[in-house]
């Protein structure tokens, strides 16, 4: 069981790490100079954005799941038991 729904927060965190790696790879090859303190704004900005996006996606998914399970005309959104979804 590997495939799952898309998680944009992980994507942003990974892209942040890749961007940092690119910045310092250029520094190592001498293409440009990256000062040592660049890591702080990039890393904390990226991880903060990732956390925010994760939270927003979680809220959206919970709201849509709630609205789907509240209408009683169709099959319930969750069939694994009444405990899983209020």
């Amino acid at each position, binding site marked *: 069981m*590997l495939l799952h*729904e898309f998680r944009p927060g992980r994507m942003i965190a990974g892209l942040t790490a890749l961007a940092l790696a690119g910045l310092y*790879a250029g520094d*190592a090859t001498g293409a440009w100079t990256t000062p040592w303190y660049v890591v702080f704004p990039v890393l904390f900005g990226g991880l903060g954005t990732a956390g925010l996006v994760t939270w927003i996606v979680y809220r959206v998914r919970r709201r849509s799941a709630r609205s789907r399970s509240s209408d009683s005309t169709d099959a319930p959104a969750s069939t694994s038991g009444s405990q899983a979804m209020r």
Partner: protein
Amino acid sequence: MTSSTPSQHEAPPPAEAVSAPPLRRSRGSKVVGGVCGGLGRYFDLDPVIFRVVIGVLSVPGGLGLIFYGFAWLLVPLDGEEENEGRRLLTGRVSGSTLAAILMALVGCGVFLSMLHSGSMLGSALLVAFALSSAAIWSRHRQAGAGEAEGRADAATASRPVAEAPPETKAPPLVEFPSWWRDPIVKDGSTGKIAIGYLWGPHGIVDQDGLVDGEVPKPGGQWNAGPAAPGRPKPSIRRSPFSIGGLVYLLAMVAAVVGTSLTWESEPLGTSLQTGLVAALAVFGLGLVVSSFLGRTGFGTIFLTVVTAGLLSLTTAVPGQITTEWIRETWRPASVAAVQPRYELGTGVGTLDLSTLAVPAGSTVSSEIEVGAGRLAVIVPKNAVVKLHAQVGLGDLQLPGEPANDIDIAPDRDVTRTLNPPAGTTPAGTLDLSLEVGIGQVEVTRAAS
């Protein structure tokens, strides 16, 4: 009551099980990490003794903190199989792991800063030796008591009293689920029926009348019984499989490959930076992949942050530090042979000016630079030395200081004029500019 609870009438534990349990961090009597409680239980001593000694050892040299931090990392918690270090390496980082690492780091820092006072180290080692000998003595005493008890038991067993018939006992109780107490399951029945042999195999009869695929034997021996109740496995796997361990492994491989490929050709900082960039890229790719395939947790993100921090540290490593350790001695024979600049990447550089005759009234100037390592300068006995020494991180020793006075400090910048000792006629002036990135600068004056 279900059949999964172990019967109270199974064979009593053998006498060997009384021997001391393995060293584990205590769960009940803990103040910080439970190390002292676990040590106390292991050595049969009051944990307060360990607490006091580790506290005393922590103050002067940080040895107690180092010991406690590493014990916290390496000794598993009571009832668990993995220690914190292994959890850390497999990407499952918890607050307790971080606290243990922090404690060991602070201990190492205190130890480094106190390195120059050797007398403290001696007394600390003495206290540690006293405690460990007390602990070992206590453990031996415990083992000796157990042996003596065993001998006493053997003595009573060999008496003729043992010929008397054994005392009557109540028959063993049987615990198996009964249909009138079991909850009715969804399909209306009471579920599977347990067989009711008093001395028979444990197990549950399936539809074909078999127990675990075999025909049950009435009157058989007690068998191992049902397995000990562990954490019940969830029947539905909610979260996808973790790829954190795989990503960590690949990142380590990438770091080693990146560093080793550039080790010969690049300076140390660039080589390490290449390896860390490769590791960070692998972590980033793993996180991106895990946004739709597999799962990565807090551990991977933590390791990414650590890698990025290390990366920014390696960019601060001075570029002149090389990966090759060189020993070089410069011994200019005359004033004219003194070069204006000497350079060495990593290693030990020695500038021996002890036989140099500097004519009075003249000035000889030179710059010496060592990236990382040791720079030793021997100046002639009768010369006036104008010294400008810069040490990025390390120690600076000038003539007249004791040889074992090592005081590590960052960003040393000392400008000083060293006059020849009284009784010698002052000769010319040596203008020396010494620079070491990480390491030691040692200036000594020749004896003759």
